[in-house]
C-alpha cells in the first residue's frame, strides 16, 4: 500500500486540531490496508478496484472550490446541508433550528472535540473500521451534528452528499449526537455524476430516550464506487428507525453496525438494495445486543436484475447477560434474470438465556402464478412484472419518512427496472 501517497495527500490538508486524529487514521490504515477477500466478511466483495481508484485519485486532492452541482429535488419542508466531494461545501449557510447545532468538525468546541475523538477511537477490530481509518485520515471536511437534550427538531434534516464528477476520493464523515429524549429525522442522500469514489463514515450516538429516524439513500452514479460504515450506539430506552436504501453505484459495500448498549434500546431497520446492470451491492449488518431487554427488528429486501450481484449478511450477536433480547431478522431477495445472483446469510450468535430470536432468508424469482394472474386480467407482461417488483419493494419504500422523496425513489426505481427488463438478459 502506497502509504507515502496517503501521507502526502493528508499533508496538504489544513493544520488544525484534527491532525493527531488523522495521524491515528493513517497509522491504522498503514498497518492494515484495504480489506482482503480472504476475510470471511469480505469474501464476496473484492475492493481491488476501490483501492486502485483511491490511490489514483489521492493524487488529485479535491479542489477547495468544487464545481457547482445540480441541486437535488427539494422534497418540501426540510433543512438541507450540502457536501460536495465528501466535504462540507464552502459558502453555504447552515440551517438553524432551536436545539440543533451544526458545526464543521474542524471548528468544533472543546466538548465537540471530545465527542469526535471518542468516536474516532472507538473503532472495532474489523476491516470495515480500517476503511473508516482511511476516512479519518481525511477527516477535516466532516460535520458535527448535535441535538440538544429534550429538543424536538420538527423539520427533517437532509444531508446531501454530492459529487461534482471530478476524479476525487470523497471521504465524508458525519458525527451525530442525539441528546437525551431528543427527537429528530435525518436523511443522508448520496448522488452525483462521473466515476467517483466515496468512503463514508457516519457515527450516530443516541442518548437515553432519544427517538431518531435515520434514512440513508445511496443513489450514486452508476460508475461510482461507494463504501460506507455506519455505527449506531443506542443508550437506554432510545429508539432508532433506520431506512437503508442502496440503489446506485457500480460497486457498493455498506456496513451497518448497531450497538444496543442499555436496557430498552430498540432499533428497527428496513433495507432495500438493488443490483442491476453489472452492479455489485454488498450489505453487511451487525447488531450487538449488549444489555437486557433490547429489541431489534430488521427487514431487508434485495433485487438483482440483469447481471447484478447482491450480497446480504445480517449478523445478530446477543451478548452474555442480554437476557430478554428480542431480535427478528428477515431477508427476502428477488432475482429478475437468469444471470443475476444474490448471496444471503443471516447469522445468530447467542450467549444469553431467555432470548427471542427469529431469522429467515429466501431468494426467488417473480411468482409465476401471480404474473399469470395479472396478465389474465389484461396487464401486459412488462407492466405485470413491474407491478410485482414494486409490490416487493413497497414494504421498504413506504418507510421513507418524506412522502415526496418516497415518490421520487419509487418512480426512479420503476423506470430503472423497466429499462433493465428491456436490455438483453
Amino acid at each position, binding site marked *: 500500500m502506497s502509504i507515502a501517497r496517503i501521507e502526502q495527500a493528508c499533508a496538504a490538508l489544513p493544520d488544525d486540531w484534527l491532525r493527531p486524529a488523522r495521524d491515528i487514521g493513517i497509522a491504522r490504515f498503514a498497518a492494515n490496508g484495504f480489506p482482503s477477500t480472504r476475510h470471511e466478511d469480505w469474501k464476496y466483495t473484492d475492493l481491488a478496484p476501490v483501492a486502485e481508484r483511491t490511490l489514483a485519485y489521492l493524487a488529485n486532492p479535491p479542489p477547495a472550490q468544487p464545481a457547482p452541482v445540480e441541486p437535488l429535488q427539494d422534497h418540501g419542508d426540510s433543512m438541507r446541508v450540502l457536501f460536495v466531494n465528501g466535504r462540507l461545501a464552502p459558502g453555504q449557510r447552515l440551517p438553524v433550528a432551536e436545539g440543533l447545532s451544526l458545526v464543521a468538525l474542524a471548528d468544533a468546541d472543546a466538548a465537540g472535540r471530545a465527542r469526535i475523538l471518542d468516536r474516532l477511537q472507538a473503532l472495532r477490530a474489523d476491516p470495515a473500521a480500517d476503511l473508516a481509518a482511511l476516512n479519518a485520515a481525511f477527516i477535516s471536511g466532516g460535520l458535527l451534528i448535535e441535538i440538544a437534550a429534550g429538543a424536538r427538531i420538527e423539520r427533517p434534516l437532509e444531508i446531501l452528499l454530492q459529487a461534482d464528477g471530478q476524479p476525487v476520493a470523497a471521504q465524508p464523515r458525519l458525527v451525530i449526537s442525539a441528546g437525551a429524549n431528543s427527537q429528530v429525522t435525518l436523511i443522508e442522500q448520496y448522488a452525483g455524476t462521473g466515476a467517483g469514489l466515496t468512503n463514508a463514515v457516519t457515527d450516530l450516538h443516541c442518548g437515553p430516550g432519544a427517538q431518531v429516524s435515520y434514512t440513508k439513500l445511496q443513489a450514486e452514479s452508476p460508475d461510482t464506487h461507494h463504501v460506507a460504515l455506519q455505527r449506531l450506539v443506542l443508550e437506554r430506552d432510545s429508539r432508532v428507525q433506520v431506512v437503508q436504501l442502496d440503489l446506485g453505484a457500480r460497486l457498493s459495500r455498506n456496513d451497518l453496525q448497531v450497538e444496543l448498549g442499555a436496557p430498552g434500546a430498540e432499533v428497527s431497520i428496513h433495507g432495500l438494495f438493488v443490483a442491476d446492470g453489472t452492479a455489485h451491492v454488498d450489505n453487511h449488518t451487525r447488531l450487538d445486543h449488549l444489555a437486557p431487554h433490547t429489541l431489534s427488528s430488521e427487514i431487508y429486501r434485495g433485487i438483482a436484475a440483469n447481471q447484478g450481484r447482491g450480497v446480504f449478511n445480517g449478523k445478530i450477536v446477543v451478548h452474555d447477560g442480554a437476557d430478554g433480547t428480542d431480535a427478528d431478522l428477515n431477508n427476502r431477495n428477488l432475482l429478475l434474470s437468469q444471470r443475476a445472483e444474490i448471496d444471503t446469510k443471516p447469522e445468530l450468535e447467542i450467549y444469553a438465556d431467555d432470548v427471542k430470536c427469529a431469522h429467515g432468508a429466501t431468494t426467488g424469482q417473480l*411468482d*409465476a*402464478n*401471480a404474473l*399469470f*394472474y*395479472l*396478465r*389474465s*386480467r*389484461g*396487464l*401486459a*407482461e412488462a*407492466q*405485470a412484472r413491474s*407491478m*410485482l417488483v*414494486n*409490490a*416487493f419493494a*413497497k*414494504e421498504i419504500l413506504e418507510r421513507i419518512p418524506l412522502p415526496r422523496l418516497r415518490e421520487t425513489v419509487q418512480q426512479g426505481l420503476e423506470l430503472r427496472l423497466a429499462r433493465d427488463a428491456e436490455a438483453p438478459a
Partner: protein
Amino acid sequence: MLKIDDLRVSVDGKPILNGLSLAVQPGEVHAIMGPNGSGKSTLAHVLAGRPGYEVTGGSVQYHGQDLLDMEPEERAWAGLFLGFQYPVEIPGVNNVYLLKAALNARRRHRGEEEINAIEFLKLVREKAALMQMDESFLNRGVNEGFSGGEKKRNEIFQMTVLEPELAVLDETDSGLDIDALKIVANGVNSMRDPARSFVLVTHYQRLLDYIEPDYVHVLADGRIVRTGDKGLAEALESGGYDGVLAEAANS
C-alpha cells in the same frame, strides 16, 4: 363466439385433453362437469393462456381469431375472463389499483379513453355492493388474507367490473357456503346478456340450481362424452358420474 375443435393438450408429456370439441354462441351458458382429473381445469387454463400446457392438436377460435396464438393479456383485451379456482394472493398490489390498470389496459387496446377516477370509483362501489363486499376489501392487497369464499367473491367482483364477453369460471362454487354461493350466482346472473357467454367449470350440480345453464357437458378422459340440458346435471346429481359415464360408454 368460441369454437373449440378436437383440442388435444398435454402437461409434461402426459395427454390431458384428448380431442375436445365445444361451440359456444353469444348469450349462452355452458356448464362443464366431470369427475376429478377429467381435464376441466386444464381446459379453463388453456383457454386463458396459462404457460405450461402443450397443445398437441386441434384449434380454438374466438370471434374468428386463433385464440391459442394470443398472449394471456391479449385474450383479456379481446374480452376473455378466467375466474380462478385458486385466486392468487398478491400482497403489495392494491385490489382497486389492479382493477383500474386492467380496465384501462383493455380500453387502451380498444382505442377507448381511460376511465376517469370518479366514474371508476362509482363503478367499483356499485359492483362491490352487488357482491356484498365491504369497501375495506378494495384497498387491501389482491386477495391478501382473504378467506376462500372472499377470494371467489373477489373473482366475480372483478368480472362484473371488467365486463368480459366470455367468462370462464373455474370451480367458482367450490368452497362456498350457501349464502356466498347465492351472492356469486347473483353476480353472474346480473351479467347475463345476449352478447355475453359463460363457461362454468364445476364438479357439483348445486351451482346450477342458481345459475341456469343452456347446455351441460360431461367431460371424461379429456373429451366431452355427453351433452344435454339442465336435466343432465340433475341425472348426475342422482346417479353420480359413474352411472352417466357407463351409459355414455354403452351408447
